[in-house]
């Protein structure tokens, strides 16, 4: 097949320039930094793959990586089913529908550092409503000193902040299902579960793909909320990858190792996102 006209590709040029300026050029710079020992603007030495060897054998980074995978796994396991359940329960008509949409959107509008501050105060045993109530009920809760409490608080905070996104995406997906499917299901006397399993869930596949990818990438890069809430503690219990990386790059000014680790971090996100995408779109291709 001979392609007659490719001029429309020029329309992609502005986006390409924007992406080059905001992503490709900075990433090239990070690659350049990752193979050098940089002291200042003019003093730098080529070190090959030494920084990669160092960061790949660094147990502190291994621990952060493990914590990060556990955190992202928990986030997806909680937020995706919960988001679907909320979307299924949301009203579809009338004033309540608009009101619920607004209420659901509120957590998404709050900046990350404010969310961290809200939960930091909310969880405090002396002045925070949740912390004080739990302690009054006889539950020894202290996110500043107990690892389990810190993890649960960080997870609940993320669920509170981001489940709305999954719910709103699923809600839009559910609203896009034509009524004829439901009519056919009523004729067949399909149960609510059968409607969900064979109509709603397959039709939600596209939005769920977006939701899973967004929540994975975002949770894997989480920084501000746990930093404000727990500061990475107690000990290093809630120190995730981006915090370790920031400490390395800005705290210790180890630009070379930090650049090397950034690229490893990027490759992990790229691989996992690609696996999610491939797994979720594979069935469509084989049909």
């Amino acid at each position, binding site marked *: 097949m001979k*392609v007659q006209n490719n001029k429309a590709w020029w329309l992609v040029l502005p986006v390409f320039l924007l992406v080059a300026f905001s992503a490709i050029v900075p990433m090239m*710079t990070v690659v*350049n930094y990752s*193979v050098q020992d940089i002291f200042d603007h003019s003093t730098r030495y080529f070190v090959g*793959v030494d920084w*990669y060897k160092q960061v790949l054998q660094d147990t502190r980074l291994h621990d952060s990586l493990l914590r990060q995978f556990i955190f992202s796994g928990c986030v997806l396991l909680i937020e995706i089913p919960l988001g679907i359940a909320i979307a299924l329960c949301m009203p579809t008509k009338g004033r309540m529908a608009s009101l619920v949409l607004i209420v659901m959107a509120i957590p998404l509008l709050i900046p990350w550092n404010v969310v961290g501050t809200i939960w930091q105060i909310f969880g405090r045993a002396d002045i925070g409503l949740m912390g004080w109530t739990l302690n009054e009920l006889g539950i020894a809760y202290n996110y500043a000193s107990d690892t389990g409490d810190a993890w649960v608080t960080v997870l609940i905070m993320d669920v509170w902040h981001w489940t709305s996104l999954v719910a709103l995406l699923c809600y839009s997906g559910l609203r896009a299902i034509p009524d004829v499917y439901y009519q056919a299901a009523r004729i067949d006397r399909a149960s609510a579960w059968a409607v969900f399993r064979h109509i709603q869930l397959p039709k939600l596949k596209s939005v769920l793909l977006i939701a899973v990818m967004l929540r994975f990438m975002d949770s894997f890069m989480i920084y501000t909320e746990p930093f404000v809430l727990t500061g990475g503690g107690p000990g290093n219990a809630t120190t995730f990858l981006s915090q370790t990386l920031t400490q390395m790059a800005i705290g210790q000014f180890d630009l070379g190792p930090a650049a090397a680790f950034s690229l490893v971090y990027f490759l992990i996100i790229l691989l996992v996102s690609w696996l999610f995408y*491939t797994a979720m779109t594979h069935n469509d291709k084989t049909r």
Partner: protein
Amino acid sequence: MDWMAWTLPTALFFGAIATILAGMTVWELRSPCIERKGFLPISTTRGDRLFIGLLGSAYLHLLVVGTTDWSVWIASVLSLFWLFAVMRWG
């Protein structure tokens, strides 16, 4: 461009990537590919196979650098074989 802290090896690396992408574009225009299934568990286009080949090569380098004392050139040679195998039979 001094602020980007370029080195000769990284310039060659990015030059190779840009050449591959340009080559793939020309190849696609001259002979559009058809999705097919090889030894990979999914059916892939030529671009998919290049992506898988490059991503696999990156991980192969990390594996060699992170877990062995081998020279990085061994990882590079293995990656070339892997890239060729994926593009040809993937």
